[in-house]
């Protein structure tokens, strides 16, 4: 059930069969959650981490006036709250944007992995560093990219990440996200999101409709977004 995570980690470094078996064996159960379910609440003690098996998950912070900013989308194969293994209580909320299946990995299993398989421990450490890199790129988007560049960059990032776990092809990918969720992710109002979606279509770069992203010009989209996938760390190195 967490084969997509193995596929993802193999992009970072070669894994031994024993390491892969240890990861697969660390999952104690697979749970189903409805759209909107909060998987992890901020400042709440946790005893397990979660891997996204299917669906879309996001991490976000709510302000006291009700406004919400999402910081990252998590897709199948992502160890979405590995942070909680060392943090114990995390600083943000994590919730399902669609119906989701999630694999549960208890902290004590992760502790065994880090002692018995230090290299695998480092690869998992790297995956949280990549989360931080994604956040840095997102700060650049929110602070410096225009509305249309911000959305273009999100479409590029999702294309590369979904493709790496076999959920996208050169035409595009399924992207079951509401305009409300996009608005909270992009820091723009919903009408502004719609306006920006239309702008990308008029520029003949991307068509986003009926939960499907269809890329018409990858080169044009990359150029507009100033997208460089280096931050996603998908280059094999000894870790």
């Amino acid at each position, binding site marked *: 059930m967490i084969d997509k995570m193995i596929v993802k980690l193999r992009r970072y470094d070669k894994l031994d069969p024993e390491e892969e078996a240890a990861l697969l064996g660390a999952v104690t159960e697979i749970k189903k959650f409805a759209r909107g379910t909060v998987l992890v609440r901020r400042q709440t003690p946790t005893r397990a981490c979660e891997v996204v098996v299917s669906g879309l998950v996001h991490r976000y912070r709510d302000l006291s006036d009700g406004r919400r900013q999402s910081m990252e989308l998590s897709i199948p194969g992502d160890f979405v709250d590995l942070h909680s293994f060392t943090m114990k209580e995390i600083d943000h909320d994590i919730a399902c944007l669609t119906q989701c299946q999630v694999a549960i990995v208890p902290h004590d299993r992760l502790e065994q992995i880090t002692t018995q398989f230090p290299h695998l421990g480092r690869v998992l450490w790297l995956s949280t560093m990549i989360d931080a890199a994604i956040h840095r790129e997102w700060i650049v988007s929110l602070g410096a990219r225009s*509305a249309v560049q911000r959305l273009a960059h999100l479409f590029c990032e999702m294309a590369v990440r979904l493709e790496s776990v076999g959920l996208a092809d050169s035409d595009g990918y399924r992207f079951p996200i*509401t*305009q409300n969720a996009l608005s909270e992710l992009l820091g723009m*109002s*919903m*009408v502004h999101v719609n*306006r920006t979606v239309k702008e990308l279509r*008029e520029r003949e770069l991307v068509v986003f409709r009926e939960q499907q992203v269809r890329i018409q010009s990858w080169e044009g989209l990359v150029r507009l977004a100033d997208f460089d996938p280096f931050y996603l760390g998908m280059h094999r190195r000894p870790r």
Partner: protein
Amino acid sequence: MPRYFFHLHNDIEILDEEGRECADLDIARRAAFSEAREMAARSVREGHLKLSHSISVTDSAGETVVIATFGDAVRIEA
């Protein structure tokens, strides 16, 4: 909660096909004016602003229940 649809009447027309839930019409009206301000701000950043451009809101029956023009959404002083 009732669903309302927020349409943009700007240099281009964009119809909202998805809509959003608002507790009541007053919340929808406030959301429309907030949308008008954000879209007016985008126009200003692009160097133009037409005060007659607007956000209109329809309810689930397709009736127009709010029109928020950019001019009504911002107070402009000399």
